[in-house]
C-alpha cells in the first residue's frame, strides 16, 4: 500500500491529466480481470482504449465510472478521488459514460431522454415537484439546449417519438447526445462503433472529434485498430487485464507486444462475436 501512495504522490497533480488511475485491480473468483498499474488520460484529447476480447477494457470502464468496485486501487478525476464513489456522483462530477449496448429509455420520448440528463433541475426534488413554478423555467432552458444538441446529432425531427422507435444507429447518437446534456468534462464511450454500419461509423467518428473540439476529453473503448488510427490522439492498449502499451496510434501499432496480442485475436474472432458474448454476460448478471 505505501508504495502505491508514494508513486501517486511522486507524480504530483499534472493539470494536463484529467483522469489518472493507479494500481487498479479487479478479480472475479480466481481470475484477474483488471490489473492496471497506471493509466493517464490527458485533458482535451481523444484517448482510445484498445485490446483484444477479454482484455478487461469494459471492466476497467465499469470500475472507473463507479459501476463496479475494484479490489484495490485508486484513481483521480480532475482533482477528485473517485475510489468508492457511486456512479451517479461520478456522473455529477463531470465524467459521463455510455454503454456498449445502448441504453435509451425506450418508453420516454427522444426529447424526454435528453431532458432527464440535464443536471440541477430543482423539479427532481420531491418537495419542489408539485410546484411547476419551481422548475418550469429551467425546463424551458433545458429543452432549448436539448433541441440544439438533437439538431447537431440529426435527431431533432424524431424528438417527440419514443426512443424505442429509433434505429440502432440513432440510439447510439441519442446516447451520445444525452451524455452531453449532463455537461461533462469527460465522456467515456464504451465501444461506440460496435455493430454499426460503415456510413454511421464515419458520422460517429465525426461526432467524437467534435466533442474534443468543444473541449471535452474523450476516452473510448474500441476494438478495431483502423478506427482508432483516424481520430485518437493517444492510444492505450490492454491485454489480459494489463496495460501493455501506451502512445500515439503509430507507436503502439509498431509495438511487438501489441502485434502479438492482436495476432491471436485476428484469427480468433471478430467484432460481432465480441458484441454477442458481452451481451450474454450482461443478461446473466
Amino acid at each position, binding site marked *: 500500500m505505501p508504495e502505491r501512495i508514494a508513486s501517486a504522490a511522486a507524480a504530483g497533480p499534472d493539470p494536463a491529466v484529467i483522469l489518472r488511475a493507479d494500481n487498479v485491480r479487479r478479480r472475479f473468483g480466481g481470475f484477474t480481470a483488471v490489473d492496471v498499474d497506471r493509466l493517464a488520460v490527458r485533458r482535451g484529447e481523444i484517448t482510445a482504449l484498445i485490446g483484444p476480447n477479454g482484455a478487461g477494457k469494459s471492466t476497467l470502464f465499469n470500475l472507473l*465510472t463507479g*459501476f463496479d468496485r475494484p479490489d484495490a486501487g485508486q484513481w483521480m478525476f480532475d482533482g477528485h478521488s473517485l475510489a468508492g464513489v*457511486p*456512479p*451517479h*456522483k461520478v*456522473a*455529477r462530477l463531470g465524467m*459521463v*459514460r*455510455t*454503454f456498449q449496448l445502448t*441504453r*435509451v*429509455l*425506450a*418508453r*420516454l420520448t427522444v426529447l*424526454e431522454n435528453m*431532458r*432527464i*440528463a440535464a*443536471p440541477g*433541475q430543482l*423539479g*427532481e*426534488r*420531491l418537495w*419542489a*415537484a*408539485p410546484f*411547476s413554478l419551481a*422548475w418550469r423555467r429551467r*425546463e424551458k432552458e433545458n429543452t432549448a439546449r436539448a433541441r440544439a444538441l438533437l439538431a447537431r446529432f440529426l435527431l431533432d425531427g424524431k424528438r417527440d417519438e*419514443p426512443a*424505442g*422507435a429509433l434505429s440502432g444507429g440513432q440510439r447510439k447518437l441519442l446516447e451520445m447526445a*444525452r*451524455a452531453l*446534456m*449532463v455537461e461533462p468534462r469527460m465522456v467515456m464511450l464504451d465501444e461506440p462503433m460496435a455493430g454499426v454500419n460503415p456510413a454511421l461509423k464515419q458520422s460517429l467518428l465525426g461526432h467524437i472529434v467534435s466533442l474534443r473540439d468543444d473541449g471535452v476529453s474523450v476516452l473510448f473503448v474500441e476494438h478495431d485498430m483502423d478506427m482508432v488510427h483516424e481520430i485518437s490522439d493517444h492510444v492505450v492498449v490492454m491485454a489480459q487485464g494489463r496495460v501493455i502499451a501506451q502512445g500515439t496510434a503509430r507507436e503502439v501499432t509498431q509495438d511487438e507486444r501489441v502485434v502479438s496480442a492482436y495476432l491471436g485475436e485476428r484469427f480468433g474472432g471478430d467484432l460481432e462475436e465480441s458484441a454477442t458474448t458481452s451481451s450474454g454476460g450482461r443478461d446473466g448478471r
Partner: protein
Amino acid sequence: MDILTSALRAGFSVDAAYFCLAAIGLNVQFGYAGLINFGQAGFLAVGAYGFAVGSVSLGLPFSAAIGLGLLCSVALGLVLGLPTLRLRADYLAIATIAAAEVLRLFFGAAFQDVFHGRDGISGFSAAFQAANPFDHPFLGYRPSDLWVMTVGWGLVVIVSVFVWSIMRGPWGRVLKAIREDEEAVRSLGKNVYAFKMQALAIGGLIGALGGFVVALGQNSVQPDNFSFDLTFIVCTMLVLGGAARIMGPVIGAVVFWAFLSLVGGVLDALTAGQDPTIPAWLMTGDQIGTIRFVLVGVALVLLMIYRPQGIFGNRKEMALHA
C-alpha cells in the same frame, strides 16, 4: 336488477374507497417506479394501528393520531427499503410480503394490552362521526358510511391530484426512467436509490391514508383486516385499471368492487333456495367467497399475460418496452 344496484353500490362503497387509496399508493411504487411491493397491507396496517393506538392508548387528538399513523408508514418504508432497494427487485417483494405477514401476526399477538390481539382496537371514531353532516340514509348507504365515503373518496381525489402533480414533471420523469433502466439513469447522475426510497415512502403514506379510512369506516382495526388478500386485491385492481396512469387505480377499484359484488350476487342467486340452479354437491352458498377469489386470481393471471396494460390501456406503449 337488485344484483345490479348492489354491484353499483359496492363500486363506490367505503371498501372501494380504501382499496382505491391502497392502489394509488401501489401505483406510485409499482406503476411508476417499478418497485414490487407485495406488502401494501402492511402499510395500511401500520397507518391504521398507529392512528388507533394514538387515539385510544395515547389519547392523542385526532390530527396527532393521524400524524402518528403517517409517521409509522414512512418508518416501515424506510426499514424495508434501506436494505432492499439497492438489490434485485425480488428482494423488495420478498421483504414486503414477509413484513406484512409478520406485522399482522404482531398486531394479533404482541402487546395484548395495547393491540388487544385479534379483537383489535375499537372505539375511536366518535369525534370523527360527531362532525358527520349526514343525518339520513341516502341511496341505501347509512349516514355514518356516507360520511366515511365522502372523506374516503375526497382523499382519493386529493391524492390523485397530488400524484398527477408530481408525476407530470421532472421527478416523475426520473421515476419512469428508473422503471425502464436503472443503470442508464444512474449513468446520468441521478441517485436512483434515493428516488426509489421516496417512491416507496410516498406509496406507503398513501396506503396509510387507506388504513385510516378502514379504521374510521369500521370504528375498529383488527389484524385480519390486513391479510395478504388485501395486497393481492389491490394488485389486481391496479393491473385491471391500468398501472402508471392517474385514473388507473380509481377505475380499477370501482370496476373491481362492482364486478366482485355482481359475481357474488349472481352466484348467490344460483345457489339459493330449495332447488338451486347449481346443485349443492357442486357448490354451496358458503363457497361463494372462495369461488369469487379464484375468479379474481384467474383475472389477474390472464390480465398479466394478455393485457398487462389494463383493460383500457394502450398495448403499443407496453410493447415498446421489449
